[in-house]
């Protein structure tokens, strides 16, 4: 099954990726190959099968709602490309 360039553009936007025109063509081709691989799954009937999200069907463990962590903001914020007064700085959001 092949994927249209408009689908590639849509997916790239959802994934917040910027692709050049050539990259879009290459993405369409390689994604189509991968989709052919994936389509083999349709060859088996799984109507009565339950999905398996975790190898041992585990569920999310919960713990008591107690504060156990401390604030490391300043230490961690030294890694930020741009920050000021405890805030991460980013370009304006254009509405």
């Amino acid at each position: 099954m092949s994927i249209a360039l408009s689908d590639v553009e849509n997916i790239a936007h959802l994934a917040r990726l910027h692709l050049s025109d050539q990259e879009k063509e290459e993405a369409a081709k390689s994604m189509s190959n991968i989709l052919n691989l994936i389509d083999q799954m349709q060859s088996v009937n799984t109507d009565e099968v339950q999905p398996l999200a975790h190898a041992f069907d585990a569920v999310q463990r919960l713990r008591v709602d107690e504060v156990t962590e401390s604030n490391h903001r300043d230490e961690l914020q030294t890694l930020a490309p741009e920050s000021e007064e405890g805030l991460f700085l980013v370009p304006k959001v254009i509405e």
Partner: protein
Amino acid sequence: MTELGLAQISRALANGEFSSLELTQEYLRQIASENGDLNAFITVCEEQAMAQARAADEARSKGEAGPFSGIPIAHKDLFCTKGVRTSCASKMLDNFISPYDATVVENFNRAGAVVLGKTNMDEFAMGSSNETSFYGPVKNPWNRSLVPGGSSGGSAAAVAARLCAGATATDTGGSIRQPASFTGITGLKPTYGRVSRWGMVAFASSLDQAGTMTQSAEDAAMMLNVMAGSDPRDSTCSEAPTEDYTASLDKPLNGLKIGLPVQHFSEGLNSDVEKVIRDAVAEFEKLGATVKEVSLDNSHLSVSAYYVIAPAEASANLSRYDGVRYGYRCENPSDLEDMYKRSRSEGFGAEVKRRIMVGTYALSAGYYDAYYIKAQKIRRLIKNDFQRAFEDVDVIMGPTSPHTAFPIGSKNDDPVTMYLEDIYTIAVNLAGLPGMSIPVGLVNNLPIGLQIVGKDFAEAQLLNVAHQFQLATDWHKRAPGK
């Protein structure tokens, strides 16, 4: 000294044959000499390693050394190491100095290990050849025009070239077992949840597992003793009790029932490789095991299901890389959307972007049921296949890889040919089971690995099975150029 395995080094240090500092300095010399070509290490931690070695020697002089004190290892560069670059072999994290240690790293530090450096890998663990690294490909020490396998190619090459006594690595679809097979060493992927993933940069959260690269099963058992265990910081980490993984290495194999999946011995398997594998299985029969054929009916769908689930989970995990809080940010973004898109597109390599795209597609409205849910249903069928087989046998064996190491650059045309490299290993991750690869022979002077798969939390049995083979044979002692 650097030829010695981990267990041998432990004994030698305890007997005072050499100091950890001497050993560490020798490894650092070898790394300085070899790494320029092999490219197994992204970061070498000279000062830190020598400080750790001195501390281990001092602890030993006070009678406070443990079995792992002073042993030089390396960590795959997706384990967070405090104060040291943790790059995941990506431009996205080239400038990332981790503010904390992963649980695995903490465990080894507490055990007194010496960390020589961070090893090269496929970018964000996505690959089967270590060719997608931002820092360039790793070369196979057995033949430097060939790949070492991936994604843990750096860890494998480092151990094979005797640049460290052992290395940590991770396996999501075969990333420990396949490079171990290509480089003639012992690779162990424990049961999903056996080792904490806290501080281990996530690729596919339901599949990723930390494991070991070593010269032998005995060495792997020593490393697993340090790594295994519950961790409240990782809610997917099992609370199942751990054990001393070295304690049952010496159990004889009489009565062991081995299953060979018919699907792993069919077309696509190189006939020379098949012969080596069957000879290895015959060796196990000499040790008292019985062999029967088993069937993993849905084996042929494992790669398809994996290439939905893993990219889908990756697309979610990698959405955090946005240039805001850490990592790469593009120059002069015009607005927030431009910043996100260009930071990500410039920071990520081609394979990573490809998988993010596939994963995003599989999870998007209209495709979620057909792809993601379908893949999870296939996953249950694959898990059921193993459960059924394990009613009749104790362990499952077969080739780790359909062939030996391939030339660097030879699989760049169609990503699917690379994906099929993991055809025998992937199902094990989907089922969450423990798996090993041990070297069992050579084809055209290149190593071949035997995959051994066990029931959940049966690492001790796997290590015992592998160890008994390694007592009776010497494939694991072969090193490149020797």
